[in-house]
């Protein structure tokens, strides 16, 4: 198990009901972590519509997570 911090924005923030949380997980990578959280919280966005960021930078879904990482799942953007 590792401890990670997850920040939520936009639709994910509203569906989770909070902006960030620190949690323990056995998920080896961001893809597994999103699957775990989606199952728990009923997020409507499928992973293929999201990007992942780890420690303030875009990251590949299968990149391994380590203890202390900060993860953000990025919904489809809509700036401008």
């Amino acid at each position, binding site marked *: 198990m590792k401890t990670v911090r997850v920040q939520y924005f936009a639709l994910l923030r509203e569906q989770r009901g909070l902006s960030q949380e620190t949690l323990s997980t056995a998920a080896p990578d961001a893809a597994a972590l999103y699957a775990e959280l989606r199952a728990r919280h009923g997020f409507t966005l499928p992973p293929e519509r999201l990007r992942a960021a780890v420690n303030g930078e875009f990251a590949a879904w299968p990149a391994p997570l380590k203890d202390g990482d900060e993860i953000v799942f*990025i*919904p489809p*953007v809509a*700036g401008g």
Partner: protein
Amino acid sequence: MSFRLSAQPLDPAALKASLADAHAGACVTFEGWVRNHNDGRPVLALDYEAYGALAEKEGARIIAEALEKFSVTRVVCVHRTGALKIGDLAVWIGVAAAHRGAAFDACRYLIDEVKVRVPVWKKERYADGSTEWVNCATRGEHPS
């Protein structure tokens, strides 16, 4: 040469003044305004939310790309966050260049890339009281 987020109203005159350059013969600006409709639905107001740290990094990368691709002298891009109403300025991009072709091309590149790459989200508030995060609808939410 900067990308910034701002929780306060933007000041286009001050932003444009920051582009002044005796070598520049052309200045092209893009302003994104909150309009009163989207996809046929009346919009009353918007909320913009950003993942600040990554938005500023990605915005800076987009500006660096524009400077590499186009012969321009100065570039500024600022994006609002927070609650906006109809007619408010959501994004301001300004480009100065010796010649107009590069200024137009760079400005267009910047807004096109910002819209699809910078982690900023927009929640529309509609006349019927409902809201929606733009681009975040999923099958099942909205029967098509």
